């Protein structure tokens, strides 16, 4: 983990409010693992103050890509940066997905909802390198929310698409698409990132079918590296009572560790 105050932006692409930024960061690229994230400073001024957590979307030689949706002031400012500008980042942070050699030769499901696809592209590549067979499920509200579909297709990934409104692919939630596909597909493990409700549903399916699963969680973060205790969540652990830091112990967790919000009620 280190700070890279002036990572030069080398390319940029946008689709509506989704933005992909590539920047040079040699040490970061060398260390990064799928599921890890960076803390990016939206601007040099004191408002907005805090850095924003953003997943590592891909690593190419000495550069990194991030993919994000402009949903508020910080991500909007990040999306206004152009090629030639600089990014002030800290990373790689947190613990990513487990990539063990036992996945070799196994089919795995990689499920992303909306901007949740961000860390999964990197994961899909590493899975392939490992000799696993990733099948990607990628869903969004409309056709405009799944702009990365072509990238996966061009790189010959097996990919199933869904939109809530039916404007592209399967009509309905990506969770329904996944559930339906289980009639003909039995993944060895499931990797998911997306809205909380979607992840909770996938966790339920994984539990019912007894498939091991990993999820990348979000939390509001003050620091991103374990110093503020702002990002906590209760996990199912030996010491059940303790709040765990998402930034340090996660953001990726095993399905059976996570207590989903509706369970808490």
């Amino acid at each position: 983990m280190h700070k890279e105050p002036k990572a030069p932006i080398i390319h940029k692409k946008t689709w509506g409010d989704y933005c992909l930024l590539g920047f040079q960061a040699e040490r970061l690229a060398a260390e990064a693992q799928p599921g890890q994230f960076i803390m990016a400073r939206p601007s040099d001024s004191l408002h907005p103050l805090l850095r924003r957590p953003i997943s590592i979307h891909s690593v190419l030689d000495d550069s990194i890509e991030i993919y994000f949706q402009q949903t508020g002031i910080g991500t909007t400012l990040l999306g206004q940066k152009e090629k030639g500008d600089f990014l002030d980042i800290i990373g790689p942070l947190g613990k990513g997905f487990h990539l063990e050699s036992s996945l070799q030769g196994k089919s795995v499901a990689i499920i992303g909802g909306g901007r949740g696809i961000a860390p999964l592209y990197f994961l899909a590549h590493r899975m392939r390198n490992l000799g696993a067979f990733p099948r990607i499920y990628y869903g969004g509200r409309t056709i405009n929310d799944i702009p990365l579909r072509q990238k996966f297709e061009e790189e010959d990934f097996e990919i199933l698409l869904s939109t809530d409104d039916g404007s592209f692919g399967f009509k309905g939630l990506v969770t329904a698409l996944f559930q339906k596909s289980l009639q003909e597909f039995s993944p060895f493990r499931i990797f998911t990132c997306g809205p909380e409700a979607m992840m909770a549903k996938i966790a339920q399916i994984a539990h019912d079918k007894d498939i091991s699963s990993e999820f990348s969680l979000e939390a509001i973060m003050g620091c991103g590296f374990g110093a503020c205790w702002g990002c906590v969540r209760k996990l199912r652990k030996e010491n059940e009572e303790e709040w765990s830091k998402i930034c340090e112990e996660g953001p990726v967790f095993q399905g059976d560790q996570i207590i989903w919000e509706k369970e808490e009620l």
Partner: protein
Amino acid sequence: MTDLSVDLGFLRLKNPVLTASGTFGYGVEFTPFVDLNKLGGFVVKGLYFHPRLGNPPPRLVETASGLINAIGLQGIGVKRFSEEILPRLKNYETALIVNVCGEDDEEYAAVVEYLDKQDGIAAYELNISCPNTKRDGRCPALSPETTYAVVDLVKKTSVRPIITKLSPNVTDIVEIALAAQEGGSDGIALANTYLAMAVDVEKRSPKLANVFGGLSGPAIKPLTLRMVFQVAQKVQIPIIGIGGIVSGNDALEYMIAGASAIEVGTANFVDPETTTKIIQDLEIHCRKAGIQSIEQIIGTLKV
């Protein structure tokens, strides 16, 4: 060469830049960014006697140039701190200050008594802004009487210097500072966060699970600066200024107003290298202004 060291009377610091409790973890989290040996000192996260759970999330909300936190002083307690963290901090050549918390006066004293037996601690910072279970959740910092009582109790047994960290959520900060001095405090840390809240308009609910939290960051700097100036006029013990410091210039404002040293808080999250940069800024400022010792600027505000 400019001499950046400052003498607090009870403690000599190699420079006036410290880190604020709760924003610097237990110190070890910052070693990838900061050479701890370069700091004047650092204040670790608040410690109660026993481990503490803290508040449910969401615990943080960002506001205009500020941050509201309701961490609820989650922490590992004195025993684990002494066994797991202290050994890792002992070899740094900088002042390690422990932020001491308590649910009642006796807990403050118990924490200090336990830590008195450990090596490697330079001073205690009494965080008297902790909700007090025996006083309907009111913290000792809210009145001169309760401030005096807890400082007096802890000071009686402590083998180390005591810095009392005050809350800014009071009508007359000067009378509280005087009470801390009266109780025997060796220094004053001014100040903690401002009680605050934020509302989610869509949900019509508070943005923090705890409803209220403490506001920190650049937004509060002018408020706390005013208090440091007022307190510096009246107390004899040294003051450590804390609130919204992000630059050398901010640090200098506090020192000119009367602070002998400063602590950097929220800025550590924004740029974990802030403390190092402030030390450099102070050095440059002094050199340019022909100041030989930074102590020469303390309390030099011309009104």
